[in-house]
């Protein structure tokens, strides 16, 4: 039935929670949800290498929680939770409309008791 949706949602949730299991990544996400920030600028907040910060950013990006774009030589990161939430709500709303439509077709055909000639 809906196992597919369920597992996809769960995969996504898994990726989110895995991404958020690390305190540096949570901190990065908090920062880029507030405003877009370059990876090199983010790196200055932490006592770790730029490469290490970059890796955290990539994990967040893969989980879909942030997006990145290039601007000149910089890689700018920004939080995307709101965007994803909107998209998710829209699809959920569409889904309920679609389910409704299908149920009503089923009812209509049932009522009609299609003569099978």
């Amino acid at each position, binding site marked *: 039935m809906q196992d597919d949706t369920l597992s996809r949602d769960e995969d996504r949730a898994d990726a989110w929670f895995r991404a958020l299991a690390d305190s540096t990544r949570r901190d990065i996400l908090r920062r880029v949800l507030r405003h877009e920030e370059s990876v090199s600028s983010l790196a200055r907040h932490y006592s770790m290498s730029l490469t290490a910060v970059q890796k955290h950013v990539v994990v967040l990006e893969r989980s879909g929680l942030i997006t990145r774009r290039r601007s000149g030589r910089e890689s700018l990161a920004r939080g995307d939770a709101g965007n994803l939430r909107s998209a998710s709500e829209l699809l959920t709303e569409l889904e309920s409309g679609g389910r409704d439509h299908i149920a009503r077709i089923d009812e*209509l055909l049932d009522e009609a008791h299609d003569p099978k000639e």
Partner: protein
Amino acid sequence: MPVTDITHDLETLTLTITAHFTAPVERIWQVYADPRQLEQVWGPPEYPATVVDHSLTPGGRVTYFMTGPEGDRFYGYWNVLDVDAPHSFTYEDGFAHEDFSPHTELPVSRCVSTFTPQGGGTRAVYVTSYTNREGLQTVLDMEVEEGSRSSIDQIDALVL
């Protein structure tokens, strides 16, 4: 319950619903080809639909309005793109003004409905996608009700 599978693709804003009907493909097609049947299955039950124009041919238009409990009306249209009766049709579904001219600031979804024979019945696949995110919030404000919250809310709560 005829729905057999649902997938959401958040990146491409695409919803795919697969259903199985016991009726044959030709019978399912009739529901869409006949405006009087279509209006019985279109829109939420508390907003019964009235189909006005109905041209299910490439380049054709289907227009409809839905009437709410207070007598309020919502207008919509389909721009029919492709038709391969009785197997599939593709259309753009959008919001309209009272004269059925398109509401250009609201998003348009592209819908592909495909019907294939399956065990004497029909396998129906409905693919709905939004090509961009503009106006998305407007639609949400118009349509989304509380209660269908996704797990991202938990994340908001966790990180904010």
